[in-house]
Structures are given as structure tokens and as C-alpha cells.
């Protein structure tokens, strides 16, 4: 198997994975997913737009979903993710949100975020390029300016005018993967829902641990925890010299779970970190497939990326085992690596 074939198979697996995540959010009208983790829509959106450049249908279905489900999205979290991911993500998110805004989206929700994206990726420094690419990486033909979508042009992307034909689907909030949405519907979008989600999927944590994990500012998280604890349903205990916040899993899961037990409890994963690792892996493979680097260097770079993905999954609390041992002949190494990634992307939900 050549690295080009490896790249195409990796792309296919990443796109299939993303389709499954979005299907769980109702993108195709399906209800929930099979996975036992909690989906993070903000991280998913940012990574999906990056990969959606190779799958226009997914890209546009996501925009249709955002149009209907914008109220579920947490803009401060999106802001933090975009800032962490750099110019390329800022351009894509800027273009997508500009489109949503121009199409009747809520300016109070999106205007500042679009401005941030424009600031992170100033138009003047951006050369116009085709938004979509085929699976081999070849850009789609450029359309004339009259036929190009103005929102995307503002961020340097050329694509035909986008007209969302059918309405996006509502999120099935009772699916296990969509616990975050259930909590947002109960407590509103923002810190409270994120904090309760974290406490529901952990045995307790300090404010700093929670804020680092949920991607919100620690001072706000600390204050929200104090507010929540006054309800008597979020509890405080001493852990060393610091305070630990926790909740009664039995009481909460009896209330939240359709089955009435914490067997329903899904895993909490740090998706921002995981998608960042996937993104780095993809970018490395995309660049290497066409490069004239030696077979050794290609394998070595692949190993770097696999180790990063493994480390990030591990950091995110998910044991995916060890990456393939380095030192194998290049072709065998790529084959074993793909099998390893398939396990992560396709079968890691046990």
C-alpha cells in the first residue's frame, strides 16, 4: 500500500467517523448513535468543516444543521476552540458563520465570532482558493465571482452560491451521546450545563480541573460552582488542601436517565484535544502523500502522528492501546498503522 492509498483510506475513515457523529446529532434524521461517549458539538463542528472540504455533502448538511440548531451551540467554547486551532480553522469557521449570519442567523450570537475569525485570518492576507477538494486533494474548479458565494469569498474560499434546500434535523436530546444537549435544554447553554456534565461523568473535581477540561475560563467556572452548590445538589468535600465539587450520581442519574440508572452514564472525552490530534495526523499524511520524502521519513512522520494521537486519547481518558511499533518496513508499518486507526475511529466504543 502506498502512502497515497493510506492517505485516501485515512480520509475515508475520518469522514465515516464524522458522519456517524453528526448522524447521532440528527443530521440524517437518525436518533442518537451507538457510541458511549458524549459528543462535543463545538469541537466536532470545527474539525468537521476542516475535513468537510473533502466531502461537500457533509459540509453543507452541517451548515443546514447549524441553521436549525444554532441555539444549542456555545459561542464562548467555540471562540476558545477557534483561537486554539489557528488561521485555517478561523477562515473556515468565519466563512460558515458569515453564511449563517447572512442567511438570517442571530447577529447577537454570531457577529462577534465572525469578527474574531476575520481578525484571526485577515482577508487581505488570504489568497482565494477553492473551498472543496476531491478525495485526492485536487481542488474543485473555481466558479466565476457572480456565481460564487459571497460569505465564503469574504474568507478567501470560492464555492458556488450555497442554497440550503431542506431544513436540518432537530437534535435527539435523549440519546446517550447527546447528554450535553439534554443538559443545555435543562440549564441553558453555558457553564452550568458543562460543569454538570463534567460532574456527571466524573467522581468529583476541583474548579481548575473542570475549567481546563471544559474549555471555559476558571474564574467563571468557580463562580458557577459556588452558585450551583447553593442548590444543595452540587456538593463540596475536602481533597487535600483544596475543595472538590461532586454530585450524587444515583440521585442525578435517576432523574436524567431514561433507564433510571447510571448504567446510562457515557464517557467524557476531551474532544478538543482529540480532534486536534486527528487534524495534525491528517495534515501530516496529506502533506507526505505527495512529498518526495524518503519511505523512511514517511514512516517516521506517520509514527510521530500516531504517537500524538495515542497520547491525546490517553490524556483524554481513553485507552486505545499502544501504537504500532516503529522499525517495520514502510509498507507494513503503514498497513498496521491504518488498522490501529481503524480501531480508534471505528471500533473504539467497545
Amino acid at each position: 500500500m502506498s502512502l497515497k492509498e493510506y492517505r485516501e483510506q485515512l480520509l475515508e475513515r475520518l469522514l465515516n467517523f464524522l458522519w456517524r457523529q453528526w448522524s447521532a446529532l440528527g443530521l440524517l434524521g437518525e436518533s442518537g448513535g451507538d457510541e458511549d461517549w458524549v459528543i462535543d458539538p463545538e469541537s466536532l463542528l470545527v474539525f468537521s468543516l476542516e475535513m468537510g472540504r473533502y466531502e461537500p455533502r457533509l459540509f453543507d448538511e452541517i451548515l443546514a444543521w447549524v441553521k436549525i440548531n444554532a441555539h444549542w451551540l456555545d459561542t464562548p467554547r467555540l471562540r476558545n476552540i477557534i483561537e486554539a486551532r489557528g488561521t485555517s480553522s478561523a477562515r473556515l469557521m468565519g466563512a460558515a458563520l458569515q453564511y449563517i449570519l447572512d442567511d438570517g442567523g442571530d447577529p447577537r450570537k454570531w457577529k462577534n465570532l465572525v469578527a474574531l475569525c476575520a481578525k484571526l485570518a485577515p482577508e487581505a492576507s488570504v489568497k482565494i482558493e477553492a473551498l472543496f477538494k476531491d478525495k485526492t486533494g485536487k481542488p474543485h474548479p473555481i466558479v466565476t465571482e457572480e456565481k460564487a458565494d459571497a460569505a465564503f469569498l469574504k474568507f478567501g474560499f470560492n464555492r458556488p452560491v450555497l442554497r440550503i434546500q431542506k431544513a436540518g434535523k432537530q437534535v435527539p436530546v435523549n440519546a446517550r451521546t447527546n447528554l450535553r444537549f439534554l443538559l443545555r435544554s435543562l440549564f441553558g447553554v453555558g457553564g452550568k450545563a458543562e460543569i454538570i456534565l463534567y460532574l456527571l461523568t466524573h467522581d468529583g473535581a476541583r474548579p481548575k480541573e473542570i475549567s481546563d477540561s471544559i474549555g471555559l475560563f476558571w474564574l467563571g467556572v468557580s463562580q458557577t460552582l459556588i452558585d450551583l452548590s447553593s442548590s444543595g445538589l452540587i456538593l463540596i468535600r475536602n481533597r487535600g488542601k483544596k475543595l472538590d465539587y461532586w454530585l450524587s450520581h444515583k440521585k442525578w442519574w435517576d432523574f436524567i436517565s431514561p433507564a433510571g440508572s447510571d448504567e446510562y452514564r457515557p464517557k467524557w472525552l476531551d474532544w478538543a484535544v482529540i480532534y486536534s490530534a486527528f487534524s495534525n495526523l491528517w495534515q501530516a499524511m496529506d502533506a507526505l502523500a505527495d512529498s518526495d520524502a524518503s519511505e523512511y521519513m514517511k514512516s517516521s512522520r506517520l509514527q510521530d502522528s500516531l504517537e500524538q494521537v495515542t497520547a491525546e486519547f490517553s490524556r483524554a481518558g481513553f485507552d486505545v492501546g499502544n501504537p504500532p511499533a516503529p522499525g517495520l518496513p514502510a509498507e507494513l508499518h503503514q498497513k498496521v498503522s491504518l488498522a490501529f486507526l481503524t480501531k480508534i475511529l471505528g471500533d473504539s466504543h467497545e
Partner: protein
Amino acid sequence: MPFKSKDEIDRILAALGDQLAAAGGEPLDLLVCGGSALHALHLVTRTTKDVDVVARIDGGDGEMRRPDPFPPALAGAISKVARDFGLKDDWFNPGPASALDFGLPEGVLKRAEVANYGTHLTVRFFSRYDQIHFKLYAAVDQGGKHYADLVELKPTAEELLAAAKWSMTHDVSETYKDEVKKILIGMGHNDVAERI
């Protein structure tokens, strides 16, 4: 994983060159002695586990400088290659760098065998003549594999005399001189032992 042949050493050093080029640092020009250099010149058949770097050659004036500490780009590249080929962490090391402080045999660079591993790594392997110098010094100090290497190099009397004189500039003691004589006599070169 020990190196068993010149081909293996070339493969590993080519990988190191690739890593250095990918890291984008400045190209390196290094003088190497020891088992890997012996293999590179097909002078011995024994295995070796490392590459010993004696000096870094400055691109500007061609002057030899101590190679230690290795620059971060080289250290990173060494780690990557160690991981990829299952080598020990210090497989590429500046172990004999202190020899530079006392001076290397005159003309060592001119005699060295030059190999380019891509755009960012040039390795100059010690010639047989200079290996005899280093091996005699190491054989006095440590014996064992160094003595075996020295014997396998089949040095002539004149080569051993030059090596002995050079090594005695590194250790001027009478004790050392006596040890050198013992080695020379052990190799059947009593005449050389009498001339030093």
C-alpha cells in the same frame, strides 16, 4: 540493535540525515571514529552498537571543533532514529570528543573517507591509518575489543611507530610508555617497542 555491516550503518545514517533535513537546521559535517568507521571502510567484521563522533567540522574555515553538546536539532533527530530502528538512546554520541583537546593525528581530515547522507549530514570516517592511532591508545587504556581491532587492522611497523608517538603526546607518563611497549611486543613488534 547492533550494526553488522556498512549497509546497515549507511541506512541508519541516511535516516539521521533525513531527520536533520526535515528539522531544517544547519547542515552538519562530523568526524567519526570507532566501530562504525571501521565498518564503513570494510576494515572489521565485528558488530558495533554506536557511532562515535570526534569532531564537528566548521563549514566556514574547515576547523575541527568539539561536537558536544550536540545541537538540539541533532539531538532530536538522534532520538527519532533511535525510536524508529530500536537503537539505544546514545547510539550516536560524542564519547571520544575529549581526544580533540590533545590534538588528532596530523592530516586526519585529508585522509578521512567522506560520505554524504542527504543535504544535511556529511560524515567523515577515520581512515585506517588514523584508526590505528586511536586503537593503539584505546588498547593501552582498555584492551579487549580495541586490541582485537588493532590486530585486525594489521598495522605495519611504521604505522605503529607513528601511532605510538602520537598516543604518547596524550599521556606523557613513563607508565603509559611501558604499557605501549607491552602492546607492541605482544603484537610481535619488538623493534618498534625499542624505537619509542
